[in-house]
């Protein structure tokens, strides 16, 4: 009988994007790198899926938390950084809390998000990446985060404006902002912290 599995040449051609990836085609370099940087023992993951079952938003993710751990073990970096998983994660720490092997899944996903933010890969959910960046920008320029300053900076980003126009929710958001103002929940001005210079020095 012809042994297909051992014969490389008869490997069937697959559609682009569906090519079979070899396991460990980058060795364990990526795994070791993430384990070292995040301080998480990802090798301990044995795919029990407790993290995915505990996750409140796993159905919005394209790569489920337990799969993400496996992807790291296999060294599939681009797939992870392109995924929606890293941006959808709420950091609610359910996965970390319930992992039987004490793998800090939330911290790992957070580390991947850090990597994605500093890479050239376009994030799947741009709005979330922009939101986090805007939050930090406001923080650095005023030391504290005022909701009004944050929201006006966020909505004046061209990508966000475009997205909101497409969804048709812009009017609703503005009305909500007005309602918050009327209720006295949105302060147009709050004192800045004197820490701005100190913070700008540490911002790396």
């Amino acid at each position: 009988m012809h042994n297909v599995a051992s014969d490389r040449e008869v490997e069937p051609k697959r559609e682009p994007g569906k090519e079979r990836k070899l396991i460990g085609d980058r060795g364990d370099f990526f795994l070791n790198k993430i384990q070292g940087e995040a301080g998480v023992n990802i090798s301990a993951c044995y795919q029990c899926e407790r993290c995915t079952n505990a996750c409140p938003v796993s159905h919005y993710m394209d790569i489920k938390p337990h799969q993400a751990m496996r992807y790291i073990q296999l060294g599939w970096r681009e797939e992870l950084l392109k995924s929606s998983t890293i941006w959808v994660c709420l950091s609610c720490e359910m996965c970390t809390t319930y992992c039987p092997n004490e793998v800090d899944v939330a911290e790992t996903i957070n580390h991947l998000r850090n990597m994605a933010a500093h890479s050239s890969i376009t994030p799947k959910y741009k709005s979330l990446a922009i939101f986090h960046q805007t939050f930090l920008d406001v923080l650095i320029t005023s030391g504290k985060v005022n909701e009004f300053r944050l929201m006006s900076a966020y909505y004046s980003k061209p990508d966000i404006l475009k997205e909101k126009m497409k969804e048709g929710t812009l009017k609703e958001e503005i009305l909500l902002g007005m309602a918050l103002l009327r209720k006295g929940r949105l302060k147009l001005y709050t004192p800045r912290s004197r820490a701005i210079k100190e913070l700008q020095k540490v911002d790396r």
Partner: protein
Amino acid sequence: MKLSFYPGCSLEGMANDYARSIIAVFMELEIELIEIEDWSCCGATAAHSISESMSVLLPARNLAAAEKLGLDIVSPCAMCFNRLRFSQQMIRKRLFDIPWPVTGDIQVHDMTRFFAEPLMITSIKKRLLKPLSGLKVVCYYGCQMVRPPKITGYTDYENPQTLDHIVAAAGAEVIDWSYKSTCCGASIGIARREIRESLTSRILQKAEQAGAEAIVVSCPLCQSNLDIFQKDRPKRRIPVFYFTELLRLGFNQIGDPHWFKMHFTDPVPLLKTKGLL
């Protein structure tokens, strides 16, 4: 008794009613709060998501200021509490260069746990003038206050009890339910509304099923999220209280009569039927 107070950004804006009720309650209990001088933001989810070093350095600055005062910190916001504790652990591991003198040795209290100490509970009971009898509530803790247990130090993270004890001490009827620490999705709410809506509506629905007339929270983000979400609901609205607001009612301190106006879900009819206002 003296404590240093780290209010956090929300308490200056969205949750300024929370800040006022906290100050009133601490005054009533004769505990002096000293606001950390020139505090800055803890970085919240954003710093954590984008730069690890910022997520340690931003809270470290406030920890250093509190250490200068030599007083334990009490933090009303779940997110700030979580970030301060996280930063403290990283400081002790000495993995980051911190430009401020900080050892990470002072205690960071989460406000609910501080109030749930037996000493504080007796002190609350002693000062109670108007027990909140007949008010059926569920307590909602949210995620950042209890998880991950390694950082927050909660041992009963599956069924936390601190808020339950406090509200029960104020005389309310506390109902047990299963969604105490399920995430409400507030952190993602601005960028991805549909995800927040699915999470929040489930929490509200379960609170209704449990037979609650009000939800008690301690996190400013949870409050605004659960409260504002009900804005467009025609009926069956559940008021969402900060626990300090209920304590203030129990101490019979009405204070500013417009104080409840900041809630989207008007709690006044409920409080009137219970004879609390």
